[in-house]
């Protein structure tokens, strides 16, 4: 469709405009992660032993950057549920908008939002002592990996928002899947310090794997194994939830 790109751009601009208007959204995606950085960096660094150069702050930052990317994607579910509830999506679907534009615009604006978030978190991290130790190339790759994780979780979020369609339910449900995924991982504490039964989950879930790879990129360490595993997980999730999200959208 010749209007595909134009409509996607309009939708992207629209979503960004909305997001910047609401203080609560900005809080949730930027200020809260900043608070997490400061909280974990200063409160827990003394108590959590880690075996990396540069201390806890270096251990922490890749984890928090990934976690912020994941949490930022959560907004996607809420925004979509809200739009469905208010009939906004209905109106769009009765207009001559390119069919793909709504989800494409959504994804594009969320990617931009994510990128802004992780850049801000990184800057704060630098402020409290974080340093890359593996060169610029890997550093950029690390950031791209974080953004990729965020985008993939956006697809899950989009599906959740389109399927559940109720803002409050989506919000509560989000806590159920997002929290374990981000907290029961290698983001904040080494997995070996967790009880045995939790380690099994934490070691093998995609967020942990991506964070481990990010840590290796940032600080030096084995890249290949986790690199492949991350790629497989990310592509796999995309392949499952992408089509699911599109189908859920068609059923609205």
């Amino acid at each position: 469709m010749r209007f595909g790109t134009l409509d996607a751009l309009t939708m992207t601009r629209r979503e960004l405009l909305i997001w910047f208007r609401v203080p609560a959204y900005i809080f949730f995606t930027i200020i809260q992660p900043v608070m997490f950085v400061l909280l974990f960096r200063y409160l827990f660094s003394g108590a959590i032993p880690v075996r990396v150069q540069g201390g806890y702050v270096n251990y922490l930052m890749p984890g928090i950057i990934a976690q912020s990317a994941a949490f930022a994607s959560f907004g996607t579910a809420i925004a979509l549920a809200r739009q469905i509830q208010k009939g906004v999506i209905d109106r769009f679907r009765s207009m001559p908008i390119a069919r793909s534009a709504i989800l494409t615009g959504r994804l594009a604006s969320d990617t931009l939002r994510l990128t802004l978030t992780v850049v801000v978190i990184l800057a704060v991290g630098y402020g409290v002592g974080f340093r890359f130790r593996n060169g610029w190339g890997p550093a950029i790759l690390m950031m791209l990996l974080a953004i990729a994780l965020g985008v993939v979780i956006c697809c899950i979020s989009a599906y959740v928002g389109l399927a559940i369609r109720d803002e409050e339910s989506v919000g509560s449900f989000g806590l159920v899947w997002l929290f374990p995924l981000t907290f029961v991982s290698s983001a904040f504490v080494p997995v070996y310090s967790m009880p045995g039964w939790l380690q099994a989950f934490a070691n093998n879930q995609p967020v942990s794997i991506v964070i481990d790879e990010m840590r290796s990129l940032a600080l030096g360490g084995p890249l290949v194994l986790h690199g492949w595993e991350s790629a497989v997980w990310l592509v796999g999730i995309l392949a499952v939830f992408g089509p699911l999200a599109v189908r859920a959208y068609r059923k609205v």
Partner: protein
Amino acid sequence: MRDARLAVGREGPAILVEDLHKSFGAVHALRGVDLRVERGTVLGVLGPNGAGKTTVVRILTTLLAPDKGRAVVEGRDVVRDAAAVREIIGLAGQSAAIQEELTGRENLEIIGRLHHLPKADCRRRAEELLEQFGIAGAADRPAKTYSGGMVRRLDLAASLVARPSVLFLDEPTTGLDPRSRIGMWDVIRDLVAQGTTLFLTTQYLDEADELADEIVVIDHGKVIAAGTSESLKNRVGGDVVEFVTPERTRVDAAAAAVAGLAEGEPFVDTETGRVAVRVGSLGSEALVRAVRELDAVGIETAGLSLRRPSLDDVFLALTGHAAEGEDAMPARRGRRRGRAGVASQDARAAR
């Protein structure tokens, strides 16, 4: 093929619906609906919650595909030519589909962009509509700050940005206060004067009466009556005289007293003491006679009034039962401002 479509598009009805069926699992929302709307006219689709009105709207606006049957908007099939249908329709659904974080102006301009209007046109059109709907003053405030009536007007404006030739309004005044309702009616009348075809669904007979050229009554997914407002009201038996008898034991006697006025049987509810009689076109004379008859047998009444027929009355006449909405709410009766004879009267006060 395309020429044939265009030819039909230029003549023929604005909307044609044939034997439309739609089920959602075990729920049969539409069980064979037929409709026809001529260009430039207003069709009022009347029915309670759950009757299937919104389902018809969703199918005609390409949001849903029917299970069986056919629907055509200006010569374009809603399933096979959905994209072509979307170019000429506007939709204002039951909830105002407005992005409340954005300003009124932004909402309208973005809709314009999504309709592929050139940028300058978007701005101009938004300005035009903001003026026309009386929200120019609030144009640059977030829609979140608008009153309910303003949001509805903005929603209606949004459905008009691309100047649709066929406009679908799904219960445009449900939930509005009486004054906003009347304001909305004025706006809608202006639209119609400009030649837009209007497909309007409503729960209120007075709204259908005010706005529609033709009315279609839908119950449980089927059309149970069609015609002009006058013909429908005649079928229903005209206006209704209604009162409550505080002395429950005398309800039947009260009903008997006013039976002489009635077209058909008086409606009696012994539990609430409510009596209602259809009085054709007697008008306020019916009220006077009712007062006299009730006084003659010495029965006191409360809330004696003459009112326009409601959706419940229509359903009672057409189906023998009250309009059973999904949530079993009593059909609301709209009252026109300044209508003579709609006064609650105590029988004694009239002496």
